[in-house]
């Protein structure tokens, strides 16, 4: 997990953040998935904490992302570059 003190780019809610999330879902909405589900493609150096901090402003909410992606994640500390994660 990333240290709480590390300053992630505070881009949540900005058009840039929305674009980044949307464009990461290059494959479109999977069948049976809510078309409004927000997706994020894991980048090099990402952690769930960092992703949660970016989207929610609070890294400790990484558990929400982990819970929403238990079909692809078994360990919150193990995410892979290129993985597409739901951001609830």
């Amino acid at each position: 997990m990333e240290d709480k003190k590390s300053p992630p780019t505070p881009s949540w809610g900005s058009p840039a953040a929305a674009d980044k999330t949307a464009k990461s879902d290059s494959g479109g909405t999977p069948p049976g998935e809510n078309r409004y589900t927000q997706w994020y493609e894991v980048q090099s150096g990402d952690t769930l904490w960092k992703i949660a901090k970016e989207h929610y402003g609070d890294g400790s909410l990484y558990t929400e992302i982990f819970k929403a992606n238990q079909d692809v994640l078994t360990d919150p500390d193990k995410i892979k570059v290129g993985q597409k994660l739901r951001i609830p």
Partner: protein
Amino acid sequence: MKTIQPYTRFIALVLAAFAIAGCANKMAPAQKAIADIEAAVAAAGEDATKYIPEQVQAVNDQVANLKAMFDKKDYKGVLAAAPAALTQAQGLTSAAAAKKTEMMDAYAGEWSTLSSSVPEAVAAIQSRVDVLSKSKKLPAGMDAATLDSVKTSLAEANTMWSQATEAQAAGDLEQAVTLAQQVKTRTDELLTTLGMTAG
């Protein structure tokens, strides 16, 4: 001249009587022709006014013209123009029914789309709001007041959606779609506020 003058007067009176009688003979049919057209418009009912207002207005304009002609005692003119107006008036019922069917089909298609997408948008927004409500520090671009307004707006959207589904269940597809479109507008605004996009 003395023998011819009374005879001429008699002929003039007879001709005048025929003219008056002829006029009276056309007055009643002209009156009936106008009444028939008005009855046909009335028979088309509210659906015609609702779904084909321009066509109803066109017939009503013709009725107004016919009445003006009638007032000028141009009964012959009324009788000449009335059949076309009557045909148009009698066509209003079927035209309204066809337009109504067309619009109901369009509403059904729209409802099918909205009844699928709107609940998904609401669910996604609710999910994000639930998580943000747990956040100790909201992200950049979001503050407590904005989040509160999102919650309020989302609650209103949920209420409107309930009304839409109730209208749909009651068979009022037009009202259901109208409300659903309002909810769609609302959820689109909320998605933008939250920095979310459709998949």
